């Protein structure tokens, strides 16, 4: 079976130990996380993990089973890249003097659609949001000039189809009563 990029979305209760439980599921099976982000979701008190892994569909199905087995996991989904809208954000810290020493860098910045977050006499910070290859393209262009710092976020993703989390939560609530 072919390995593919899968975006795993996990809706959970806010629980301090859950991150540990979820990461242990991957660790135990030697599955490397390509990216990992955690945030609040569209529902109050419900959190959302977005994990990107490169594995087979059979593997990802089993992983979803193990994740959903955790008590505080409400629901987990997996999607291919085609089924999601996804972005990553990167920050580039560059020496300000380069702007004057090499005019070419100004063209790179202009054509990159990157935002300038801050400028000081010593450095300026660029923010670039897009797909991995957009971020990498800018990285490759800026890298020869010398980067003072670089950091890239994990993937955030929204799915094209509906998740029905509110409905699932309603059903839980009914059973609880």
């Amino acid at each position, binding site marked *: 079976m072919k390995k593919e990029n899968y975006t795993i979305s996990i809706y*959970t*209760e806010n629980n301090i*130990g859950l991150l*540990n*439980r979820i990461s*242990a599921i991957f660790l*135990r099976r030697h599955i490397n996380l390509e990216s990992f982000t955690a945030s609040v979701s569209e529902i109050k008190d419900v959190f959302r993990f977005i994990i990107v892994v490169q594995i087979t569909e059979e593997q990802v*199905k*089993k992983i979803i*089973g*193990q994740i*959903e*087995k955790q*008590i*505080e*996991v*409400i629901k987990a989904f997996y999607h291919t890249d085609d089924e999601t809208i996804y972005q990553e954000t990167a920050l580039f810290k560059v020496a300000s003097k380069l702007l004057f020493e090499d005019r070419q860098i100004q063209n790179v910045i202009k054509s990159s659609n990157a935002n300038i977050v801050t400028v000081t006499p010593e450095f300026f910070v660029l923010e670039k949001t897009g797909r991995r290859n957009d971020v990498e393209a800018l990285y490759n262009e800026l890298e020869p000039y010398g980067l003072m710092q670089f950091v890239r976020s994990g993937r955030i993703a929204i799915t094209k189809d509906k998740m029905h989390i509110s409905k699932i*939560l*309603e059903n*839980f*609530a*009914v*059973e*609880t*009563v």
Partner: protein
Amino acid sequence: METQTQTIKKETKVSTERMKGAEAVIRCLLAEGVDLIYGYPGGAIMPVYDELYKYQEQLHHVLTRHEQGATHAAQGYARTSGKVGVAIATSGPGATNFVTGIADAQIDSTPMVCITGQVGSHLLGSDAFQETDIIGISTPITKWNHQITKAEDIPAVLAKAFYIARSGRPGPVLIDITKDAQFGELDFAYEKCKGVRSYIPVPQTDLHSLEAAAKLINNAKKPMVIFGQGIILGEAEEELKKFIEKTGIPSAWTILGLSALPTAHTLNVGMVGMHGNYGPNKLTNECDVLLAIGMRFDDRVTGDLERYAKQAKVIHFEIDPAEVNKNVKADVAVMGNVKNTLAQILPMVKPNTHESWLQEFRNYDTIEYDKVIKDELYPNEEGLSMGEVLRRINEETKGDAVIVSDVGQHQMIACRYAEFTKTKSNITSGGLGTMGFALPAAIGAKMGAPDREVVAIIGDGGYQMTIQELGTIYQTKVPVKIVVLNNEFLGMVRQWQQLFFDKRYASTEMVNPDFVKIAEGYHIQSKRVTRREDLQESIKEMIACKDSYFLEVCVEKENNIFPMVPTGASVSDIRLE
């Protein structure tokens, strides 16, 4: 919906009582119907022990000699009583000594609540004396765990712990309570947990899956059932019996399914797996429909998955969605508690007998009897065999005893040859294979089923891993019968060395102490048997004894367990020698 739930809870709140967190722990246990706990005191759990002193009339505490013993005793108790086992220990080493028992309970789905003390919350993360991150350590081996740092959280968290431990597919829960939470005060009121948002203990059964399963069963020419512990945990013994009797399907069991169906039942065709019976292993690869009921296709059951029941349509009756399609692809998955799903499918299946198919199992039985069983049960050699010890125990107990086995050759002999008439009678460490399990588990098993005879069958290796629990037996006067089958070897490892490592017996030979003297030191009646002519009388004497009894049987040193499915082989390549 959520807010509605909360309002209902608020309205039904009963009057509260002001008390310390430590007392609240005891009151929670009492409210859950717990009257017996196993444990070991220490600094960080002392406030709870102080309250135990006050409540000793209502809540009996068994002091084991090691925290691991407390967990196994709680497991044994849970498995014969069907209730949640409770173990309690201090922080640090007390908590880490729980780890093996918790892992064992997790893999064998045993309902257990473990309570550990923890250093004061202001010291968390400071490498304080006896501080250990037991939440981090126990995360992968618990169904759920939680650390309590405030007294007022104790009732709700413990209620949730018991609910999670016993509901759905059961498992161990660990609750870590900081010392300040034990000393802190709260307004106590207890309400049993009725549900946890985000947790579905029993998945819904799809009617279509029942119809599809019934269709496969009704059209099957060579159907076969393999049932597991799901039958026992779901208390579905009657439902299983009715189902197989109506359909006439030959039924085999996994090691943890053992005793759910009486040994003498005509449709009971024996054990599957590595040291299982010849027929069910062979015929797994010949059946046309394989019904897996409350079992999880462990690798010791399936052997090589690429050559496992490929010809069969697989129907999986299962409570845990993560187990479906994990190892063996199910053509039909029937989700739910087997007690309900088997009852639901019963009117949908047609009465049948599979005489000639059942005969195929019997034919293999004959081969196995001639090649293996006869010599094991009625050996011609001078040395005693483990099998003849089990045969004598069967004769004396008439299959009514609870058999607690440890891990290794004697375990396979016990599971293969012990006869059972009642359910919840085979207590063994199946998934984790924990040597040292049996002695403490037997203590708990007897306390969980005080009216039943409990016989622990242990090897000389595993016995010495938790031998200190003889102290618990002496102190509590719990009348368990202990049989050590002494071959002066770590027998199962030695067997593998003989078969797969050219007889290089690296570190498997044991120079043992005088076990009888050790038992005598604990004032336990004891005897050693070395000759066949003394065996029957000794077992008779042991069973007749009203108190605990220790019997050492010196058996043949280099006997092997057969049949055997070697690792990586297919179940149908099972070897008889």
